[in-house]
């Protein structure tokens, strides 16, 4: 295998620390004027791509391409990705319709087209976006490409020049290690690494890195929506039941509530 050409799809989402508000029409979550950031799991995948380059493993990293689909503010997160160390970026321009955006299957098809066009041999994605919480895109992409997949990776090791790769990933009772060959699709979990902060000089440099704008049509993909939002509502509120003075009070209250 000559070199690693890594694709890192990223998503701009409402910042993880913000409590989302549901709009009056109950069609979605209020996004206007709300702080947005790079999806936390996507930061991990960018970081991992950069570390694969820095680690100088048996295969040299040739290219790290960040990609994001969305409206006019999407380049913000792509610049962040490039400030962290991605070489270049694609902004797939998708008009904002005030809804949840592209569905994972459409995104997977779009990524499949980019993988082919750009001759990518490793795709690193976050295990889920913290807005839709679907956790599907990576697996769908792997399925469409017929490539091996590893979800919720906590350790990635490229073993040799032939592209043998070992991925340790989180499963329900602990971790599991898989061995396969590149090309492959990996989704990242929290424990994979600690993403770096972009330094000011790198943020300045990122402004000069190439950012190409494309459309879904350029990639031969249609924006099909198979799921219709019926409504978006508040979860049933939960009220605190007040405080007790001491441990005896705690036990008495738990007994009263039937929990003991």
């Amino acid at each position, binding site marked *: 295998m000559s070199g690693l050409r890594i694709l890192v799809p990223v998503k701009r989402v409402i910042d993880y620390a913000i409590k989302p508000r549901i709009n009056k029409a109950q069609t979605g979550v209020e996004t206007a004027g709300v702080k947005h950031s790079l999806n936390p799991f996507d930061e991990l995948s960018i970081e991992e791509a950069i570390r694969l380059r820095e680690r100088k493993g048996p295969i040299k990293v040739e290219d790290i391409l960040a990609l994001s689909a969305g409206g006019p503010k999407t380049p913000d997160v792509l610049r962040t990705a490039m400030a962290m160390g991605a070489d270049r970026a694609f902004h797939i321009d998708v008009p904002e319709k005030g809804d949840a955006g592209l569905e994972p299957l459409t995104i997977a098809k779009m990524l499949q087209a980019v993988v082919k066009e750009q001759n990518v041999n490793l795709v690193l994605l976050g295990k889920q976006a913290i807005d839709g*919480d679907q956790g599907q895109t990576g697996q769908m992409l792997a399925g469409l490409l017929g490539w*091996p997949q590893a979800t919720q990776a906590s350790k990635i090791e490229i073993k040799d020049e032939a592209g043998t790769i070992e991925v340790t990933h989180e499963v329900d009772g602990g971790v*599991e290690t898989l061995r396969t060959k590149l090309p492959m699709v990996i989704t990242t979990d929290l424990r994979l690494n600690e993403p770096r902060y972009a330094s000011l000089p790198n943020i300045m440099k990122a402004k000069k890195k190439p950012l190409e704008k494309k459309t879904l049509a350029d990639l031969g993909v249609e924006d099909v929506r198979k799921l219709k939002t019926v409504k978006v509502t508040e979860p049933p509120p939960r009220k605190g039941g007040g405080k007790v003075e001491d441990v005896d009070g705690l036990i008495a209250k738990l007994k009263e509530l039937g929990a003991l």
Partner: protein
Amino acid sequence: MIPIARHSVLRAARAQLQPTRKLSLPTSSALARLLSTLAVLEQRNGKLESSSFSAVAAALKLGGSVTGFVAGSGVKATSAAEAAKIKGVEKVLAVDNDAYEKGLAENYASLLVENIKKGEFTHVIAGHSAFGKSVLPRVAALLDVQQISDITGIESEDTFVRPIYAGNAILTVQSTDKIKVITVRGTAFQDVEVEGGSAEVVDGVDPNVPALTEWVSEELAKSERPELATATRVVSGGRGLKSKEEFDRLMLPLADSLGAAVGASRAAVDSGFADNSLQVGQTGKNVAPQLYLCAGISGAIQHLAGMKDSKVIAAINKDPEAPIFQVADVGLVGDLFDKVPELTEKLKSA
């Protein structure tokens, strides 16, 4: 518990007697005949995992016929037989082949696709466990359908309810796909009767697609305590425990005094106090026990996402302003290093 008639004939009859039932399609009786659901069962070493029962529970809730699917080493004699006894399952498709024992997504997804096509299923349901999360989206893509993940409710055969934004919003979504591929939240679908069924076990089709990955090893956290995702009581510790030693010294005896499973916040897991697999929250496990008792957890959005459906929440925290107190049914403000051992002692002697 009142035995609920699960068979489709009875179900259809019942639906006609109650025309106001939730299934809002033309006629429920006709629908019940058309719906056929494949419940993907997860098994390990010949035993069904708890996610399997959730998949069946959701499939039964949907109505129509329910077929179980299980694959792995010698499953016909073991987990398939176990599945055949679940009340309401009409048939179990079993594929005996070592290649599927570890549930590797690549060959398992191809296997499922073949069986879904052959059986002409309208719905495919699996638990939202690590296995279901890994395999089902791959299946959905191969079938060219948009999956619906981690549902907590079924409104009708095509309309489902799922939490988004870490459970801060509830989305009701309608699928226009011909085949509905769904993963279900375990805590929202329970109470299947594991005895009393008598499904027929038949061989599924086996396309024998070669696995692209090789299973190397696993490291599972061993514990005598109940499984976190299904425990009726959960005791959970956070950053306030300060170290792994303190976590083990304080939380484990408390868990034992209650017969509870042990959970942890992300902060506790990241700091190495507890194993990753014990993390409760948006990106860890979802739990909904009878009692969720936590100590030293402030109650960040991401943590609440994983436990706020618990029946009773109790919290011990020294900060009276901690957000956890806004959701806790009972809160105790105090130093957990004093309160937790005292609580453990008093529960033991009670």
